[in-house]
């Protein structure tokens, strides 16, 4: 029975990435095949499908999200197959509108009972969230990273998956440069040498970049490699940004040297590294998990491989920063019957391994559910497989306000494009972040890292 449900969930999940063109009718046909579980399932958090919701009486709730409709539809189909008295209306708002509409809807009387969360909007949502009706110990037993989500003894949402950066390389270019699997770099020095071999120039003009980080050096390098050198993004008080540091400047200098000394790429070659890789113009990029699905759907002709991010000395304090993909939020202002359904839905979602696998595969996130760390389906995904060995060596700083990324993006652009020196650019970034965070309630959770100093 369990295998059969797993199979159906997998088919639904795969439809997100590989059968995007399927009609809604075919999806409905898939949904009609869902078998209803009759036995209790789950690890520590257990779900009993025999317990009625809302006393079996009809109830309708809304679930708001910003994309991946098929994934949510399959989840809803699985749940409503157990509870046919429940109707869950899926409402898709584009990402740009979602974060304006959602808090306003939650502030009113008719906001959705359930909604998708991205932790970067934590501060705008936390006042509308109901705590999960699941013992914290149970959450901690089944999922990693729960401690970082405890607020005054309550948990409002947790991470179902961890997304971070890995190196994507073009296998055809790799082979053409005479490189083999044995050349996969473990350190940044090795990375530099490999990137040089992968770079092709016509005179001074780059034809093929060995490494391209245009447009995302702030997300994928500046806010992550600091951990490799043993330094956090925030100072010990957890609130003061630590971006104007020697470590951060060292990383920035390394990036500048990649382009200006080693010539393995150029600030003017490819507006965005990810696009340039997809268009077959760059040999290597560091991208987060979602890029795996982007490559498979948008640039399916690229023959790519994945390896773990290099380190400075092979023995990092942590490999990189990760960000959690969040579980659903429950609207504390929703009617009680709707909240009860929402709580039950989240428990079903957390207890169900098949759903967890499907969500993690669809988002290319490493499962936060401990029992799925060695899951066969998960490890088939190369961007997740390379993380498996050191997954506990990745740090989440907490739901950082957007100004941290934006200000470092601006600092990097000042250095690369406007000729500003690194010290001045990072001085300004530090000042801007401090000003923008003056009234923020954010406190870093870097101290909760397993190997925190």
């Amino acid at each position, binding site marked *: 029975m369990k295998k059969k449900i797993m199979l159906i969930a997998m088919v639904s999940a795969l439809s997100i990435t590989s059968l995007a063109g399927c009609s809604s009718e075919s999806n409905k046909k898939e949904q009609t095949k869902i078998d209803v579980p009759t036995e209790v399932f789950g690890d520590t958090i257990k779900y009993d499908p025999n317990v009625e919701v809302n006393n079996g009486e009809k109830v309708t709730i809304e679930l708001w999200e910003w994309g991946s409709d098929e994934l949510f539809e399959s989840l809803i189909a699985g749940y409503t197959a157990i509870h046919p008295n429940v109707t869950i209306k899926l409402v898709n708002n584009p990402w740009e509108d979602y974060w304006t509409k959602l808090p*306003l809807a939650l502030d009113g009387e008719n906001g959705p009972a359930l909604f998708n969360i991205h932790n970067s909007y934590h501060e*705008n949502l936390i006042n509308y969230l109901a705590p999960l009706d699941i013992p914290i110990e149970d959450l901690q037993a089944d999922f990693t990273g729960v401690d970082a989500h405890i607020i005054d003894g309550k948990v409002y949402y947790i991470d179902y998956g961890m997304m971070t950066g890995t190196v994507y390389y073009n296998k055809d270019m790799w082979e053409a440069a005479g490189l083999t699997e044995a050349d996969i770099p473990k350190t940044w020095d090795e990375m530099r040498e490999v990137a040089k071999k992968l770079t092709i120039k016509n005179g001074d003009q780059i034809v093929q970049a060995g490494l391209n980080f245009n447009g995302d050096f702030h997300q994928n390098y500046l806010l992550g490699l600091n951990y490799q050198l043993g330094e956090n993004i925030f100072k010990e008080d957890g609130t003061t940004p630590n971006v104007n540091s020697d470590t951060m400047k060292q990383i920035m200098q390394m990036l500048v040297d990649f382009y200006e000394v080693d010539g393995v790429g150029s600030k003017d070659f490819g507006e965005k590294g990810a696009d340039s890789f997809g268009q077959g113009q760059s040999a290597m990029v560091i991208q987060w998990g979602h890029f795996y699905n982007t490559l498979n759907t948008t640039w399916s002709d690229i023959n790519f491989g994945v390896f773990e991010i290099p380190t400075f000395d092979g023995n990092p304090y942590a490999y990189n920063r990760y960000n959690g993909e969040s579980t659903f939020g429950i609207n504390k202002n929703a009617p009680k019957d709707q909240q009860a359904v929402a709580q039950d839905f989240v428990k079903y979602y957390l207890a169900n391994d098949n759903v967890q696998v499907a969500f993690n595969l669809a988002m290319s996130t490493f499962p936060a559910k401990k029992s799925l760390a060695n899951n066969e389906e998960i490890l088939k995904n190369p961007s997740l497989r390379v993380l498996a060995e050191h997954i506990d060596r990745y740090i989440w700083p907490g739901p950082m306000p*957007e100004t941290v990324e934006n200000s470092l993006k601006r600092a990097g652009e000042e250095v690369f*494009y406007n000729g500003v020196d690194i010290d001045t650019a990072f001085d300004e970034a530090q000042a801007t972040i401090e000003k923008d965070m003056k009234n923020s309630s954010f406190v870093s959770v870097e101290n909760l890292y397993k190997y925190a100093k």
Partner: protein
Amino acid sequence: MFKKKHPLQSKSEILLRNIVVTAMIVFFLVFLIIPIGIAFVGSFHEWNPLSGTYRFLGMENYKEVFTSSLFGRSMINTLIFSVVVIIFRVGLGLGIAYAIYSPFIKYKSFFRAIYYMPIVTPMVAVAFVWKFMYNPQIGTINHLLGLNINWLMNPKTALLAVMIMTIWKDFGYAVVMYCAGLYSLPSDALEAAKVDGANGRQVFLHIILPLLKPMTLFVVITSIISYVQAYVQILIMTEGGPGTSTYLASYIIYDEAFVKYNFGYASALSFVLFVITAVFTWCSFRVSGSEE
């Protein structure tokens, strides 16, 4: 004494007038006056409507506006952007309208429609297309001109590139407005000038141009108002970059309000911008001598 006659003839006309006027007043109150009032009060507060923060700050937001180097830089950018785009909009608009007005040009409606087409195309779509055209590797512009310029990421060309796109998008408006102005010129004045022996240049400079002054003023004023508010093209094409080199005043307001949810500071910025726009508009009237 005669009883003063009411200009409206029947009760139904009076009722209709009252309904229409009331609707207008309610509309402007709800969608203009009250929001402006709320924003003005909010400009003295630390205000994040999404998290429910609303704390009185006094003049802090305004002090921050006037001490912000980013706001200063963005105002200079806004000034450069507005002046250059308006000059080209008016110049091209007048030149092309005069060409269409010429008796030697056939298919006048066709040309008016062609030049007006970019105006009715959404700015978002135009900005995306131009962004693609400016791409240093695969963009049409470098390809056609044989150049190798990273237009949108070079601080020397980024704002220029956005201005070129905006001029292309908007000059058609001036063409149509000037066409309307030219066709409504009093024919007796033009004929009298010809009878007096004025040549084409003299007619244009001394008759047509002065008669088009109200239209020029209208185009300039509406352009000032619209370019001081410009942010969509910046949002899509440069996001204010590289660094902060293409930040315009309205883009900061967008950034503060809808990225950082700092509505209080954004409201203060808006009011400062409102005053600056009013001053520019007043100056335009003064310069043209059309205060009344």
